[in-house]
């Protein structure tokens, strides 16, 4: 249905701000020392606020506030919502209790992953799906025949990630009574002014942390509430670059960075099945039919899976971003998709996509070729790499309930 003329005319002014500013932009702009912005899903988002290195240590030692408003958010409601999502996604949504969150993924008919994301069950018939890429046509088309409503709510709901050891203390200090009871992947609603904020114990850092969602009108007052409470707990605002380090340590993958999404791929051989990007554990073979199921099961049965995603620990301390992975120093077997020196593990770590059977049956004798540009000269390094499990770092404080105070 085409919106009416008045709504369309009102929308014309978008061209005055080609980069949308998120509801938290006024605060971020004020805090930004580096003035270092990039575009995330059409929004102005910070690479860094004051210093990526120090911002990273805020995540690991104090608490960090990160604006996740640009993340795509879809609201799925209606009597068939559970059935619809169960057909759409890989995990069994019937097992997702009200007030819980599921990390999940969904596939096209070829079993190629369209995206991964988090599914929040706000009520029996009320879900929120958060993810990196846009999927409205896919979600609407697959809703045909189900009694559900799918609505994109990215621009009306603001989101914040509050991550780090003191995040719980900050929420308590901010007066969110009862937040101590939240277990990992659990959510609850708390009053905020005359509205509600949904707080879930989730995040992208592998640390103790929470995500908060509010209607955009309450965004700034929520920020201020946390900011005031955080003053004595070392709270800092951070940009994506610091978060990215934490997520690599936690071993999380990012759509269109660690794998190419099925709908985004121009080259048809770029699609990846869940088993090829480390998401095999999401596939619930017991539940009723879901999209991509047959293709995934067939590939498993016929052993036609081509790729595998692995964690690597690499000799030395030079990050191997986008390096080629070799077997026996000669044969190209894959590509590093993300890599950092991990300050927490004191190791050179990487996420890599390998071509089976490498990484599967053949796991030894791997090395990566690093081209390190130093003062306009390449140093070409061949470094041994060892396959290790993800996450690269495990923090007990992530799961303790009630959480520690720091």
């Amino acid at each position: 249905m085409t919106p009416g003329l008045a709504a369309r005319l009102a929308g014309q002014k978008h061209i005055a701000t080609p980069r949308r500013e998120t509801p938290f932009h006024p605060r971020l702009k004020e805090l930004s020392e580096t003035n270092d912005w990039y575009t995330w899903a059409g929004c102005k988002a910070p690479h860094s606020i004051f210093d990526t290195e120090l911002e990273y240590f805020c995540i690991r030692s104090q608490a960090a506030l990160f604006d996740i408003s640009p993340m795509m958010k879809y609201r799925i409601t209606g009597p068939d919502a559970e059935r619809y999502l169960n057909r759409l996604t890989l995990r069994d949504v019937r097992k997702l209790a009200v007030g819980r969150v599921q990390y999940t993924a969904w596939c096209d008919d070829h079993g190629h992953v369209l995206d991964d994301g988090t599914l929040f069950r706000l009520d029996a018939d009320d879900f929120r799906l958060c993810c990196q890429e846009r999927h409205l046509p896919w979600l609407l088309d697959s809703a045909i025949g189900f009694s559900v409503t799918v609505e994109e709510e990215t621009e009306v709901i603001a989101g914040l990630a509050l991550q780090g050891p003191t995040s719980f203390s900050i929420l308590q200090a901010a007066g969110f009574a009862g937040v101590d009871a939240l277990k990992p992947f659990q959510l609850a609603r708390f009053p905020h002014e005359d509205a509600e904020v949904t707080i879930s114990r989730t995040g992208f850092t592998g640390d103790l942390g929470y995500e908060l969602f509010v209607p955009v009108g309450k965004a700034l007052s929520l920020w201020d509430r946390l900011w005031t409470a955080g003053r004595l707990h070392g709270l800092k605002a951070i940009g994506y670059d610091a978060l990215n380090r934490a997520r690599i340590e936690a071993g999380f993958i990012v759509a269109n960075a660690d794998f190419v999404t099925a709908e985004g791929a121009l080259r048809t051989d770029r699609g990846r099945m869940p088993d090829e990007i480390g998401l095999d554990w999401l596939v619930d073979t017991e539940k009723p039919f879901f999209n991509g199921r047959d293709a995934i099961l067939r590939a498993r049965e016929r052993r036609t899976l081509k790729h595998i995603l692995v964690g690597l620990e690499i000799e030395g301390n030079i990050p191997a971003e986008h390096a080629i992975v070799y077997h026996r120093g000669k044969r190209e077997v894959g590509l590093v998709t993300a890599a950092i020196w991990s300050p927490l593990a004191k190791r050179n770590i990487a996420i890599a996509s390998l071509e089976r059977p490498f990484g599967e049956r053949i796991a030894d004798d791997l090395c990566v070729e690093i081209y390190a540009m130093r003062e306009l000269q390449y140093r070409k390094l061949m470094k041994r790499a060892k396959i290790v499990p993800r996450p690269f770092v495990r923090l007990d404080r992530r799961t303790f309930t009630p959480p520690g105070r720091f």
Partner: protein
Amino acid sequence: MGSRMKRYDVVMIGGGHNGLVAACYLQRAGLDVVVLEKNDWVGGAATSRELTPGFTYSNCSYVCSLFRPEIMRDLELPEHGLQVVAYEGGAVFTRDGDYLASYRDHDSHRREFARWSKRDAEAYDRYARDVTRQCRFIQPLLMRTAPDPFSFRPRDISELIHLARKFGEFTPSQIAQTLRFWTMSISDFLDEYFETDVIKAYLALSGIIGTALGPMSPGTAYVLLHHYMGEVDGSVGAWGYARGGMGAVSRALASSFQAWGGTIRIGADVEKVLTRNGEAAGVVLCGGEEVLGKLVVSNADVKRTFLKLVDEQDLPDTFLHRVRHFKMRGSSGKLNIALDSLPEFPALPAGSSCIRGDLHFTDSVERMERAYDDWKAGRWSADPFVDMVIPTQLDPTMAPPGKHFMSCFVQYCPPKVEGRDWTDADRDAFAETVISQIAEYSPGFRERIVHMEVRTPREIEEEVGLTEGNIFQGELTFDQLLFNRPVPGYAQYRSPVKGLYLCGSSTHPGGGVMGAPGRNAAAEILRDLRLGTKHMSQAHDVI
């Protein structure tokens, strides 16, 4: 005459851009080439002329993206003054006072489409991906001679294998998609992606430009592809302006050709191809002068060449039959307008870049189809669709400061009016339909007009020599592409007359200011002469 008369290696009939491309490559291979152009200028449908002081028009073609970058480089066209400037965007005005704009910036584009439909805004990415996939398949075929599937010569077989292998990289569902793409109507194709009429209308335009079909006619999806597979500096699907007008392409080619010692004769109208013992031996100009050559290449369209310039007795019947039935029905007209100031379009947002791109007034596919109905009845469309650009906003060389050149491509416009010839009164009435459409959206438009050139198929045929005024020297439907263009068995630039070749848009890969037909024809000629083609780049890799 006889022995004292100069005999060229190659006589080129016509100095359109393809003729010039072929001539450049042949001259650079060491041959002595003469280009005979009937007009007093070169360029054919890629021409820029000053018809009123201070204003340069792009008299026919007006936007540039199809021209192959490999050719620009081989022939050193930048050194000979060619510059292609990318532009962005465009808009369709809707009858309710709104518009739909298009932007280069991905997010602005999405947000603009989302004003009309959030779903369509995202579906656009799918659409662009699918069309780009098809383009990536087709692009490398542009710079290769189409294989003849029935010749069984080793070269044709290996080319067919090459094709099959490219096809083999596709998944079965993509092969199915490709076959559908080549045969579907643009309207059906767009229906698979979009729900909003104005969005479909905006995108459908590329499916019918230069084609005597409506958006609902099968085969028009491919035409869209033909317009999408161009690029500006590697950005596929982007369009640009040749700085100085489309004629700048032909001027640069002529200059490159002459720099290598080639001869251009303007005002040299070829009346007949001379044959001796069934072999081409040169041409006779109107007035009787003979120009001799070991080979003759025709840049004129296939009908003009074989139905007017070559004696029927030299040609086989089936071939002639096919040529007579090659479809090149005129469907377009054009208005070139000199303006004493930049027109205003109050509906457009102030400061938006879309005014620098293509502007349209047709906001539904239905209106396009109705416009086509008029053409079928032998009338110009009462409610035509117009592709309007004002290149002088980016190119200061075409009009005095503050003044502008506006190019309006108009469809549909029949080769004959209800079966009879066009009259000047018809032409003026046709122009009036267009002007009144523009004036509806741009107050004071008429008062800005300094000069106007109006071209119906009659003028296009008379001046450029395009039979029936068809802008592509033959429609771009799948039955007239690849080894069927222009005639099965003669798709490799050769003809039944030994020593007579074709190099214009009637040949593979077809129309548009692309240069590929000229380049491929030169490659075949050099092959026949056993001369090297090292100076010709292969198509850029599509990776």
